[in-house]
């Protein structure tokens, strides 16, 4: 009754998989409607850290700083909001941040749209790749390093002032002012904007443009009446991202503004670490969160959610 053939050996990977399958089978079949939630759980828990943090900050914002002990008092009060909303300094800071957000969004959109269009419609794949690489390189270099680059260019003895001096012109102050911060922010936002606009342009068939032009519209008219309206979802998405990122930015105003052009985030930082008043810093944080949410809600209700909220069909 002996067999010459060696017994068939299960490969190790099969055995491991079988064991894993047995472990997976411990999850009872009737719980299977919950499987999706189980898979979501780690991500939900990670993001929950931010929710707890927000609750803490909201709580801090409702307690006044006791100047005797430098701790927050136990009693609830709205003093921090009162201070933040009444102070002329903070009003300037809020208006400056909002103003910069509008300016940066406008400039970035105007610059990013042609870039995205040329990139998507480029005939040669070499051109397209060159434009993509030029976009991704700065995208992968953080704000601090890029701001440092601008400091070398715009600084008192930087590239531009040296050029001016060699032409016999007096140096001009190019950093630590509003335009420098706007320039730094526009450069930072360009890759975000282009990458959000480009898919919307891809979705527009080139034959639609050809049709428009064959009916006698020149390219400006085609852009105005065909391409830009069709690209609206991408433009809305890009505007939302650029606006909120600018509104909440810290590094550019800090490094290129040099304390002269503080945004809300810089004031929050100062509230916590210079004034040692977490209550006031938290109240400013809540104001920033509110401002951002209000803007996003208003834009979404005016223009639709764009490409940011996907509505994929599920089986």
């Amino acid at each position, binding site marked *: 009754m002996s067999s010459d053939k060696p017994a068939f050996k299960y490969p190790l990977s099969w055995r491991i998989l079988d064991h894993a399958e047995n472990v997976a089978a411990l999850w009872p079949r009737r719980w299977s409607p919950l499987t999706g939630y189980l898979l979501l759980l780690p991500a939900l828990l990670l*993001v929950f*850290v931010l929710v*707890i*943090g927000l609750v803490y900050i909201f709580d801090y914002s409702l307690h006044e700083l006791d100047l005797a002990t430098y701790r927050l008092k136990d009693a609830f009060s709205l003093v921090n909001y009162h201070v933040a909303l009444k102070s002329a300094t903070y009003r300037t800071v809020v208006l400056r941040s909002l103003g910069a957000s509008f300016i940066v969004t406008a400039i970035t959109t105007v610059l990013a749209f*042609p870039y995205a*269009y040329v990139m998507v419609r480029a005939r040669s794949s070499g051109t397209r790749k060159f434009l993509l690489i030029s976009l991704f*390189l700065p995208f992968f270099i953080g704000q*601090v390093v890029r701001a440092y*680059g601008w400091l*070398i260019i715009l600084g008192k003895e930087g590239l531009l002032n040296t050029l001016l001096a060699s032409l016999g012109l007096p140096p001009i102050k190019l950093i630590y002012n509003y335009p420098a911060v706007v320039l730094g922010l526009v450069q930072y936002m360009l890759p975000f904007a282009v990458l959000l606009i480009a898919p919307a342009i891809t979705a527009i068939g080139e034959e639609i443009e050809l049709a428009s032009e064959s009916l006698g519209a020149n390219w400006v008219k085609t852009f105005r009446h065909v391409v830009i309206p069709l690209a609206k979802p991408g433009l809305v998405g890009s505007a939302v991202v650029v606006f909120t990122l600018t509104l909440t930015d810290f590094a550019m105003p800090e490094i290129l503004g040099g304390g002269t052009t503080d945004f809300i985030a810089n004031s929050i930082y100062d509230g916590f670490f210079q004034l040692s008043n977490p209550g006031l810093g938290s109240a400013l944080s809540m104001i920033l969160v509110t401002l951002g949410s209000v803007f996003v809600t208003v834009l979404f209700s005016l223009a639709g959610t764009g490409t940011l909220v996907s509505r994929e069909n599920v089986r």
Partner: protein
Amino acid sequence: MTGSRSKTAVLWSVVWFNLITLSLPTIIILGASFTSGNIVQFPPDGFSLKWYGKLWLLEDFKAAFLRTVYVSVICTLISIPSGTLAAIALARYRIRFRTALQVYLLLPFTIPLVVSGLGMMIIFGEIRILGQLWPVGVALCVINLPFMIWAVSATVNALDPDLENAAANCGAPPLQAFLTVTLPAVMPGVITGALLMFILAFNEFLVSLFLTDARIVTLPVSIYNSIRSVITPDLAAVSVVYIVIAFVAVWLLDRLVGLELFLRSK
């Protein structure tokens, strides 16, 4: 591109303006790092690699660099399973309140970074892990997680559910179908996401500023601290590390999934 010569001229002049704006800081930093002088100035004093040589002698820099790698690896390792599973769950499973959960998972983008950073600083302080390095990695994962979910979602949505049905039909138990059909199909998304998570964590500044102190400072924060004191060419050489890593990341991304992926319409 269709159209007239004026269209080409106008669009390309904007594109060239963008290209210069985008690349100028990088080029200038590269140039400044090769100076042989002791200060950053124009024209540079001459060409030398001495600042790169000095880089190896800067213990602070080396330590900050290693710490940054450490937190970026932690961030990436946490984000791969949590982000991949979340994206698959959202696309493949029956989930109630899907839209609400999607909005919830976008909270890291909608809550301002400065607020997220301070919130986590407070929490980490409360549970007494502030001042350690690994929580910084977790924090960086939290704030960038939507990138991971987005990258994987794109590939899950492109995957025909009938492939998974076919596997099940051929007798594959759920886990086997998942491991041999779903997972390989979404791999390009996982790779894109993991690369983005690593590079964003490597560059993250503001949240690290709140969560690190002088003992565990990461590279972006240490560059920021040096900018505030005095600008020397060794800082340019340190920054070149970032430029090199960005080049490697772009090359990898192009080789692994192709940059054209980002132009596709949904």
